[in-house]
């Protein structure tokens, strides 16, 4: 039990960092565009399938393949924003965006089913099944590499946001769109690029997810998006730090419940924890307290 527990905790922290990466993309999109991107889950799966195609058919290493899949997902993200998000206007914009991105998700899911079928596939490489022995269990290298990559990318996002002119315009747009427009920021451009970045990180997250989840198919997107939504709500919508903490906390919690109680209850505990926290802190862990009318 002790060995399994420590394995669950280590896996949870390392695996949680990958969820943190995907959740940061989602919460960034929310913060800047004020929309919830339901398609994020299926886009992660799409990213995983892109890595799958590159590694199985073209024999490109998983991490090297990211050099192709990340820009590809960035372009897909910008295209989705341009075609389906930008035209949304008016008071019910956020609600409409839920439906629009959900529609995008069903379409992508259908296309993936037609191309790849419903069989579960797995990303494979030598480092996916090998690794050093620590605390009495084998830790696959993919967890370590994935953790390092997620850390690197989240740091890159942080650096971009807080140390570059582009980041400053992103933060300005997050705070007040009208004011940002007044001082000369091209809000449309910022929104398009942010959506692209938020989607691009799914390529990296999807690759690690595809290698560590033990198999995925197009339907996996639903499970992913509900977890990601729970994570960003728990962390506080629009809060990047909150999303990271919440991701690692939730995924570790789920892994621990898996071991100490039962796998069939871990998901109940996962969502139960969200409801419990929100009962006492409606704005999430690090969320700003905002007027309810928004």
């Amino acid at each position: 039990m002790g060995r399994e527990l420590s394995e669950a905790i280590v896996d949870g922290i390392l695996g949680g960092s990958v969820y943190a990466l995907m959740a940061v993309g989602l919460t960034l999109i929310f913060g800047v565009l004020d929309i919830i991107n339901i398609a994020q889950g299926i886009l992660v799966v799409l990213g995983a399938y892109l890595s799958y195609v590159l590694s199985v058919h073209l024999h490109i290493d998983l991490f090297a393949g990211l050099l192709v899949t990340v820009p590809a997902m960035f372009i897909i993200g910008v295209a989705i924003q341009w075609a389906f998000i930008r035209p949304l206007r008016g008071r019910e914009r956020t609600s409409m965006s839920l439906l629009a991105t959900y529609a995008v998700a069903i379409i992508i899911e259908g296309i993936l089913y037609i191309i790849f079928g419903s069989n579960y596939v797995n990303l494979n490489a030598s480092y996916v099944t090998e690794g050093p022995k620590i605390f009495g269990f084998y830790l696959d290298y993919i967890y370590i590499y994935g953790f390092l990559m997620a850390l690197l990318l989240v740091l890159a996002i942080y650096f971009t946001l807080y140390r570059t002119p582009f980041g400053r315009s992103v933060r300005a747009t997050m705070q007040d769109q009208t004011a940002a427009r007044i001082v000369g920021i091209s809000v449309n451009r910022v929104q398009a690029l942010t959506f692209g970045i938020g989607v691009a990180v799914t390529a990296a997250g999807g690759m690690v997810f595809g290698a560590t989840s033990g198999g995925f198919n197009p339907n996996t997107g639903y499970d992913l998006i509900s977890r990601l939504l729970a994570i960003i709500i728990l962390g506080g919508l629009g809060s990047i730090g909150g999303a990271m903490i919440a991701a690692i906390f939730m995924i570790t919690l789920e892994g621990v419940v898996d071991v100490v109680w039962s796998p069939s209850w871990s998901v109940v505990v996962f969502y139960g924890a969200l409801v419990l926290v929100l009962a006492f802190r409606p704005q999430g862990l690090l969320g700003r307290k905002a007027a309810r009318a928004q």
Partner: protein
Amino acid sequence: MNGEPVNVGPVIEGPVIEGPAQAGGAQLPAGRDRQATVLRLGCLAVLLVIAAIFPLVITNALYTQFAVDTMIYVGAVAAWNLFSGYTGYISLGNAVFFGTGAYTVGLLTKQWKLPGGDIFALLPLGGLVAALVAVPLGLVALRVRRHTFVVITIAFFFIFQLLAFNLSFTGGNQGVSSPFFLWSAADYNNPFYYVGLIIAVATISLSWLIRNSRFGLQLLAIRDDEDRARGLGVRTMRTKLTAFVISAGITGMIGGLWWFFIGQALPETAFDPLFDLTVALMAFLGGFGTLAGPVLGALILEPLQQWIGITFTNGYTSDIVLGGLFLAVILFMPRGLVPTGAEFVTKWRVAQARRREAAPGGSAPGGSAPGGSAPPGSPTLGRTGSPGAGTPGASTPGASTPSTGTPSTGGVR
């Protein structure tokens, strides 16, 4: 900001602030309006008659089965709209109540070994249990912001689906099967159809009553600006929770009906994420927050979905078609069929009125001053939806009455 719904301005500013006595006071007693009301009631009566005789005329079991499905969705959407449409809190977790109703009715039928026939008497009980479940859920979920509310309802949905899988009395992934009914195979679907029709009509009537009541105005005030509504003395939590529980109770009853009809409740079909999304889509297609819109959305979308399912036998292609359709509606008709249609009718009437006035106005220069000033005012009113604030039109009551009456009633529907 031209996209503001036309209904909200007059409704809120009229009764809530000036006095609650004259609910629905935005209507003007013009002859044209009375005509429209008669016309509308006539249409409603015809629709009801068609709905009532439908299974007697069309006896093909496949079509009556579609009709039952459609009735189930009409009721479910009307119930969803009663809370989400009026308050603006989008719930993607109504399947919680649908499934709770189905399981309650199913487990009780099994427990009490009820024979077929009078089983429908159990439906209110299913609704009651779903409503009771909604109270604690609402107390937690309604404390948060709108975006968060959506996600909490999704979280509730997952919790309930997993509970249905894991609890000892729910039958796990075998679910609960319903007994065989002894009525004849030829009109097997009819009892379900009529019960569904009764629930749907009752829900729509309730929705209409709420819409025209003080309670309904409070809900709409919450939708417009919750903080301001509280400032004006609306007890927002209590109001929201009441609507949430009513909506849940009705959805629970419909879930029970669905269980009798389908014959089996599985965790993944009774607590179905597609149910949540379909209901929301129907409401948005028809017109979010209007009375007729969601019903219209269900009447169009459910048969269409069935048709797409039959035409594109590959389930994934039908998904793609549905998603594409979905996007087309959102992009080209973001406010839904009913508001867009009402706007279209208003514009057409204004154009007609302008044409009618233009003809005599050219020959008689003396009378053209008041008549000529009305049309520029009327289109503005049609768009902003504040009849009292229309500056040019206000000075010419006679000429502008028909066109001012139209946007307000068109929106209130």
